[in-house]
C-alpha cells in the first residue's frame, strides 16, 4: 500500500513535468523539448553562477534555434504553464478540502458558488481599477468575497451537523444566482475594455498569465496548500461525523472555520488571474479517491498534483484545439466536469435511495 501511494505521487510528478514541457513546446512557434530543457539549464546556470560567483557546468543542451524562441518561452509560455500549475493545484486541493469539511463528495468551489463569490471581488476591482494593495489587489479582493461566500454557503447548507446533497446543491444554485447578479452589475457598469476582460474572464482563461500574476498567486497557493496538508489528519476524523470527531479530540468548530479560510485563500488565488475554471475540484479528488482511497494525507497532495496536470492539459487543449484561437479554459473543464457531476449526482442519489 505504501509503495502504491509513493507510486501515485511519483507518477503524478512525472506526468506533471512531461505535460509542462509539452505545453511549453506547443503553440504557434513549436519548440522541441531538448531546446526547452537547454533554455532552462542555461538560465539556471547563469542564475546560480551570478549568485555563487563560481563557474558551473550546467549550461548544457541546445538553445532554441528560432530567434524569438527563448523569448516566447520565458515571456509567454512559462508564466502560463506556471500559473496553470498554481491554479490547478489550488482548485483541486480546495475541492478536496471542501468535500472533507462538508462531508459531501459533491462540494466543489464552482458548484456551491465559492468561485463565483471570489469572482465578485475580483470583477469589482477590475471594473473600478482599484490598486490599494498593488499587484495583490485582485487576489485579496477575491479572497475576501470568496471567504464571505464560503461562510454563507456553510451556514446555509448545514442542518443538524450534516450537509445533505440536495441542500448543498440548491444552496449552490441560490448563491450562484446572487453572485452572477453582482458580476453582471459589474459588467454593466464597466467600460468597454474592462467589460471584454470580464466576459472572457468569467469563462476562465489563462490568456493573461504573466510573471507578475504568478508572483501574486504564489504566496496564496503555498500558504493555502501547506495549511490544507496540515489539516489532512483531522479531516479523516471529520468523516466520522462531527460528534465522533469531537470524541476523538478534534475541535470541530475551529477546524471548520480554519478550513473555510484556507478554501477561500486557494480559490481566491486561482480565480484572481484566471477567472472561473469549474469542476477541477470535483473531478480530480474523486479520481484520486478511486485510485488511492479517501485518506486525506494522500488525497490532498495527490489532488494538488492531479489538478495541476488537468489544468495544464485543459489549457493546452484550449489554445490549440482551434488554430489561432484561445478558447476559454473554463469551457473545456466544464465540458468534462459537467457530465461527471451529473454522473456523481445520479450515483449519490441511487445510493441514498432517492431524495423525496
Amino acid at each position, binding site marked *: 500500500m505504501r509503495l502504491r501511494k509513493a507510486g501515485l505521487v511519483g507518477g503524478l510528478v512525472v506526468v506533471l513535468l512531461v505535460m509542462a514541457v509539452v505545453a511549453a513546446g506547443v503553440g504557434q512557434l513549436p519548440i522541441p523539448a531538448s531546446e526547452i530543457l537547454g533554455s532552462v539549464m542555461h538560465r539556471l546556470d547563469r542564475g546560480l553562477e551570478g549568485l555563487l560567483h563560481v563557474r558551473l557546468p550546467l549550461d548544457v543542451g541546445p538553445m532554441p534555434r528560432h530567434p524569438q524562441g527563448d523569448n516566447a518561452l520565458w515571456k509567454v509560455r512559462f508564466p502560463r504553464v506556471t500559473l496553470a500549475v498554481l491554479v490547478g493545484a489550488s482548485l483541486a486541493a480546495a475541492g478536496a478540502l471542501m468535500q472533507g469539511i462538508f462531508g459531501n463528495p459533491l462540494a466543489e468551489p464552482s458548484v456551491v458558488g465559492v468561485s463565483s463569490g471570489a469572482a465578485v471581488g475580483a470583477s469589482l476591482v477590475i471594473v473600478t481599477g482599484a490598486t490599494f494593495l498593488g499587484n495583490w489587489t485582485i487576489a485579496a479582493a477575491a479572497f475576501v468575497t470568496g471567504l464571505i461566500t464560503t461562510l454563507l454557503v456553510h451556514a446555509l447548507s448545514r442542518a443538524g451537523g450534516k450537509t445533505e446533497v440536495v441542500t448543498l446543491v440548491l444552496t449552490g444554485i441560490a448563491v450562484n444566482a446572487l453572485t452572477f447578479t453582482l458580476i453582471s452589475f459589474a459588467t454593466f457598469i464597466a467600460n468597454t475594455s474592462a467589460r471584454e476582460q470580464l466576459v472572457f474572464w468569467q469563462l476562465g482563461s489563462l490568456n493573461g498569465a504573466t510573471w507578475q500574476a504568478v508572483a501574486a498567486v504564489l504566496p496564496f497557493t503555498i500558504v493555502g496548500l501547506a495549511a490544507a496538508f496540515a489539516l489532512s489528519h483531522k479531516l479523516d476524523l471529520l468523516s466520522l461525523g462531527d460528534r465522533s470527531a469531537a470524541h476523538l*479530540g478534534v475541535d470541530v468548530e475551529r477546524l471548520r472555520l480554519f478550513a473555510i479560510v484556507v478554501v477561500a485563500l486557494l480559490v481566491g488565488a486561482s480565480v484572481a488571474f484566471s477567472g472561473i475554471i469549474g469542476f477541477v475540484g470535483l473531478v480530480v479528488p474523486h479520481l484520486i479517491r478511486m485510485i488511492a*482511497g479517501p485518506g486525506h494525507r494522500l488525497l490532498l497532495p495527490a489532488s494538488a498534483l492531479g489538478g495541476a496536470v488537468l489544468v495544464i492539459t485543459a489549457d493546452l487543449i484550449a489554445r490549440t484545439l482551434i488554430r489561432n484561437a484561445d478558447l476559454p479554459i473554463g469551457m473545456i473543464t466544464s465540458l468534462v466536469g459537467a457530465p461527471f457531476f451529473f454522473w456523481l449526482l445520479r450515483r449519490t442519489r441511487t445510493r441514498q435511495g432517492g431524495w423525496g
Partner: protein
Amino acid sequence: MRRRLPARLDPGTTIAAVRELHIRLGGTKILDGVTLDVTAGQVLALVGPNGAGKSTLLSALCGDLPIDSGQALLYQEPLAHWSAVEMAMRRAVMLQQATISFPFTVAQIVEMGRAPWSGTGRADADEQAIRTAMTLADVIPFSERVFSSLSGGERARVSLARALAQQSQLLLLDEPTAALDLHHQEDVLQLARRQAATGDAVVIVLHDLNLAAGYADQVAILSNGQLAACGPPAEVLTAELLSDVYQHKVEVWPHPATGEPVILPQRQGAGPRR
C-alpha cells in the same frame, strides 16, 4: 497545545460523575436532577423506557451537550476544564448510529481511534492497540472491507473497535447491542466485563434488561429524566419497580442455576398458538 496526559485510576475510584444534572433540549426538560457516579473497574448499565434520558445522560458524560445546571465531572474536574484532546484521552464513545462520508476501510477507521495519542509517547503502542481492539471486537475477518459495505451489526462492531483502540479508561457505549445478533450481544457484554476487570469503567445504555442483569455491576434506572434507582442488578431490577417505570407488568424470577434475575414482560394474548 496544552495536553495533560491521564494517570491510570485505581479500581473503585470515581472516574466520572454527574451532580444534580439538569438538561433541557428545545425547551423540554430531558434530565431533571440526576446524580450518578461512574466507578473504575465496574460496568454501569443505563436502562429505562424510551425518552427517559439515557442517551442524553450519556451525551452529557461525553461533553456533547450544554448543561443547564448541575455538573458533569471527568477525573474529578468539570468537563469544561478539559480540551477536546484531553477528554479523548480519558473517555471513548461509541454512538448508536455510525455513518462515514467517504469509503474508508475498517482498518483505517479503527486506526482513527488512535488520533488522541498522536505526538505523545503512547503513539508507539498504536499498532498493538489497533490489533488488540480489532481482535476483541471480532472485526479482523472484514478489516480490509469498506465500511459502507458492512451490515448493521458489523458496523457496530467496527465502532466498538475504534472506541477500544482509543484505550481510554472510560468507555461510553450508547446501545452497542441494538444491531447485534444474540451471539455478538453476549460478546460485547463479555468484552465490557473483561475491560472492567482490567480496571476500566464501562457505561452502557441498554434496552435488554436481561443483559443488564447478567453483566452489569451497577444498574441505573432512569424514568422521566430522573434516577429511579441505582445499585446492583439483584437489588434494583425488581418486578415492582420495573412494572412502574415501564408502565407494563413485568415479572422477575431468579435464574434456577445462577440466581441472577430473569426479567420477562407479561404477554397478553400470548399462549399456545394454532
